[in-house]
């Protein structure tokens, strides 16, 4: 192979530890892109001294699917199904963030019932995302199988709800600019309410089994510490930021949707270590259940779609808008520039997991290789969103 600089192969090789390799001290290991616990096609180049990580360089791009470019070449609505495939655990929140940005851009109002439905679906998404994250994290720690089975059992129940509502288990494509696509029946709401009310049972069981477990505590406490200062400077959002004790939740700060109408608390961590991040998810699920209960009590019949919103030949006025929501993984934002044509002029996604991943090296330095997997698991990445 010719050694021209332009070839991607050459660019791919990072000069992680060339100098130190010559001294014979560090061992360079490439973890991924096929690795059982890199959560998809993520690769890390790790320089090890014994078992201790001295350098770590993430390598992205194995799942770069040109999401933004495709978004600029399709109509506004045409991008909606693509947003499902960004963070494929949380298609509902992706839909919401995108719909919110376009609504901001075009100044579309959303009917009351649709706003409630969005909150309900987003919180259900948060439940299933956090539950599966805990399962994956524990299997990264070596509890292979069982916690993931418990988590997926709960996830399936929520996916059933999504399927009966939107027609697809994972890729819901449910929200539209100015509302939601279909109106759920009363039975659906009753069923969803039942599932939300029973969810704490699963949480009790899960916490009993796992969160007080000595091995879990030993593997996670004081591992992968992140200081609040670094987290804020690096733009970390979501449960990772709150685990460091920074009180920032867009549901409270921005008050989008109907979140100001609900009473809920924001759990905060103290140490910013992996255990806090794990706990943050467990506590957030409890708060989500509280939000869900209030939402089911408040939701009233009514239209789910703004009749003035145009579906066909939708052309927002010239301008730009940034809409962001608190997705389960952090701040998910869409930045759109419109030039008055049916396609966005610029379509940019602010993915939470990509930005949360940037401080991976800071968290991993000085820890063993086995801890790297646990720390990476606690960041909660989805490659579809990282590489887009």
């Amino acid at each position, binding site marked *: 192979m010719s050694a021209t600089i332009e070839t991607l192969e050459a660019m791919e090789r990072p000069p992680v530890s060339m100098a130190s390799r010559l001294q014979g001290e560090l061992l360079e290991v490439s973890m991924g892109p096929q690795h059982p616990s890199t959560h998809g096609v993520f690769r890390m180049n790790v320089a090890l001294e014994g078992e201790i990580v001295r350098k770590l360089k993430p390598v992205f791009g194995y799942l*770069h699917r*040109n999401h933004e470019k495709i978004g600029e070449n399709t109509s506004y609505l045409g991008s909606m199904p693509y947003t499902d495939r960004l963070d494929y655990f949380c298609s509902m929140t992706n839909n919401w963030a995108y719909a919110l940005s376009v609504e901001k851009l075009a100044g579309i109002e959303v009917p009351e019932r649709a706003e409630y439905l969005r909150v309900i679906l987003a919180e259900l998404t948060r439940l299933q995302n956090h539950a599966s994250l805990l399962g994956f994290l524990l299997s990264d720690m070596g509890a292979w199988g069982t916690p993931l089975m*418990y988590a997926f*059992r709960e996830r*399936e129940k929520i996916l059933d709800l999504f399927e009966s509502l939107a027609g697809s288990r994972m890729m819901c494509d449910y929200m539209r600019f100015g509302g939601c696509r279909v109106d759920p029946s009363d039975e659906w709401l009753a069923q969803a309410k039942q599932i939300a009310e029973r969810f704490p049972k699963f949480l009790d069981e899960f916490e009993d089994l796992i969160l007080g477990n000595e091995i879990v505590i030993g593997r996670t406490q004081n591992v992968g510490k992140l200081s609040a200062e670094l987290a804020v400077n690096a733009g970390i959002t979501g449960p990772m930021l709150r685990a460091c004790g920074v009180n920032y939740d867009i549901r409270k700060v921005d008050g989008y949707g109907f979140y100001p109408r609900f009473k809920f608390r924001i759990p905060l961590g103290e140490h910013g270590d992996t255990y806090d991040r794990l706990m943050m998810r467990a506590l957030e699920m409890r708060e989500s259940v509280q939000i869900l209960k209030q939402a089911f009590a408040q939701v009233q019949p009514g239209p789910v779609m703004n009749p003035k919103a145009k579906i066909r030949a939708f052309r927002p006025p010239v301008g730009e808008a940034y809409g962001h929501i608190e997705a389960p993984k952090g701040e998910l934002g869409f930045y759109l520039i419109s030039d008055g044509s049916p396609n966005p002029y610029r379509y940019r996604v602010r993915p939470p997991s990509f930005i949360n991943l940037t401080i991976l090296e800071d968290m991993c330095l000085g820890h063993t290789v086995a801890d790297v997997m646990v720390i990476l698991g606690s960041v909660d990445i989805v490659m579809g969103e990282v590489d887009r």
Partner: protein
Amino acid sequence: MSQIDEQLRTELQRQGVWVTSMQDLYNWGRKNSIWPLQFGLACCAIEMIATAASRYDIARFGGEVFRPSPRQADLMIVAGTVTKKMAPQIVRLFNQMADPKYVIAMGACAISGGPFKQGYNVLKGIDRYIPVDVYIPGCPPRPEALLHAFMELQRKIDEQKLTGADKAEFLKPDQPSEFPVPRFGRHDLEPRANPNVFQPPVLER
């Protein structure tokens, strides 16, 4: 290979005697212990995990042993979008698997690029570089679809012959077990497809 008379066999089975041929026994063992390679590419991989998890439980078909190492795997489930950066690694992983090996292309992306086909970085189907045994359409295919593909693969394994002129492909000495790994060229992967595996469909107008 001498064939057993089906009637005689059922008769014997009724008497408590189980007669089989080497080929049947061998295929029966193989088809009920397919070990997939544990690796996911994108969204479809989550449905693959769901298939292995509690509700759908691929263990009922003997496929629950997901191996992280290609050396121990029989089946590669290409679950998700194959990008041009990832395609060489997939071919490399496939080359590292021991024969007999099988491939399931799961989802629209693995078959043809799917919704991301227009993307400059997306490979338009993994069958350009490695032979695929079962295709499952869907975006993502439901877990039931993956189970169906798994059963189709079991049927295929069951029908493979060990001897004779029409014996299974992997037993023929001239069949390649390794496939050339594509490399990055100036604009695209080179070669853009393996002509021994993939012939583009001829358009008739």
